């Protein structure tokens, strides 16, 4: 009712919300993240173009990480088939397909549902292979500890510049199929340069699922990540997870800081990372390129 004269007219009110449209997904992602942390599971969101080599990297990881004694597990998004899950299973990684049908990305709710009939709690490192797509998956936080983007050397040196949202969300880029470099007209320096224009702290490991190149550095990265969030053998007693607001589209970006500050947290500095000159998100990889 109109309050000035009581005439019965309605009022037009502007309701200020300033609320993220993905707030619902972020809530579900937070929930997943709590599950993972409580169960001591390192969850990774693996993204990249169709055919970039995501599944192949995971197959190779099973071999490269064998000496660590980790229990691996994976869920693999597939539009129509369960081929990837079957490949992973064969490579020794217990896996399950998430059939996404039309959806071009995973969201936190889909991941949560997939956990119900999969023994993910028993894994040490749990991979979520996203839909092959360099656009949509980047904006959906799934509850992962870190985003890993698989970029193959066959995709063109300017891919990062064309898909800045994806690379901006990446904590690590695995530059894969490096065994093909001698046969291609590709300059890896150009790829690194492009990445430095879309990622403020580019972390890149050059790998090949075929030859095994760089796989040790990738496994070392995973190990350091586990240690950093208190899951590894050399776990630090404290985690800084509570200091980070998760109300952010790219939860993973912030999560990356959870580990990186595990040993450098001395002076009450802001967690924008700027003070850490060239500090690495998880360190270890000798193929890293800091620009």
């Amino acid at each position, binding site marked *: *009712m109109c309050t000035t004269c009581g005439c019965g007219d309605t009022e037009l009110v502007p309701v*200020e919300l300033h*609320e993220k*449209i*993905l707030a619902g997904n972020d809530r579900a992602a937070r929930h997943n993240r709590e599950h993972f942390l409580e169960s001591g599971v390192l969850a990774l969101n693996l993204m990249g173009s169709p055919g970039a080599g995501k599944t192949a990297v995971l197959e190779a990881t099973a071999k490269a990480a064998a000496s660590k004694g980790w229990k691996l597990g994976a869920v693999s998004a597939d539009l129509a088939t369960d081929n990837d899950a079957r490949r992973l299973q064969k490579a020794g990684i217990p896996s399950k397909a998430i059939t996404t049908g039309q959806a071009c990305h995973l969201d936190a709710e889909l991941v949560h549902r997939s956990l119900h009939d999969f023994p993910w709690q028993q894994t040490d490192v749990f991979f979520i292979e996203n839909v092959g797509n360099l656009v949509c998956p980047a*904006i959906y936080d799934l509850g992962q500890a870190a985003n890993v983007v698989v970029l193959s050397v066959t995709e063109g040196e300017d891919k990062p510049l064309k898909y800045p949202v994806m690379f*901006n969300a990446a904590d690590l880029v695995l530059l894969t199929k490096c065994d093909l470099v001698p046969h291609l007209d590709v300059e890896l320096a150009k790829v690194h340069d492009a990445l430095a224009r879309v990622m*403020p702290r580019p972390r890149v490991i050059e790998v090949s699922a075929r030859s095994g190149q760089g796989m040790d550095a990738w496994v070392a990265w995973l190990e350091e990540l586990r240690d950093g969030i208190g899951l590894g053998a050399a776990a630090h007693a404290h985690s800084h997870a509570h200091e980070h607001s998760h109300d952010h589209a790219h939860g993973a970006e912030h999560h990356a800081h959870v580990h990186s500050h595990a040993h450098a947290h001395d002076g009450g500095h802001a967690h924008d990372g*700027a003070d850490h*000159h060239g500090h690495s998100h998880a360190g270890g990889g000798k193929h890293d390129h800091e620009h």
Partner: protein
Amino acid sequence: MHEYSLVEALVTRVEAEARKRGALAVHRLSVRVGELSGVDPELFQTAYETFRAGTLCADVPLTLTRVAASWSCPRCKTPIARGAILRCPACDAPGKLDDGSDALTLDRIEMEVP
């Protein structure tokens, strides 16, 4: 094309707010789209126009405001030029994305209340 699922989340949110306030009608929605939000404003608008049929938003115009992405130094605030290496040109600290650059935000719902 995730714009449809985003529009669905938007309309659901608007309907919930309208119900909460006992709104008789909704008159306008205002949404801000950061350049690095991963959302194509045109696709979003099209998706909205398709999806809103049969919902409370059926005749409700959507105003989209684009926010250009920009980076600056978190330490000394020096802006980083578009397309440049994301390090501060003055002090070499890694750059930080400015607010709104990657956000997709429902800013305002104008509604008619009794």
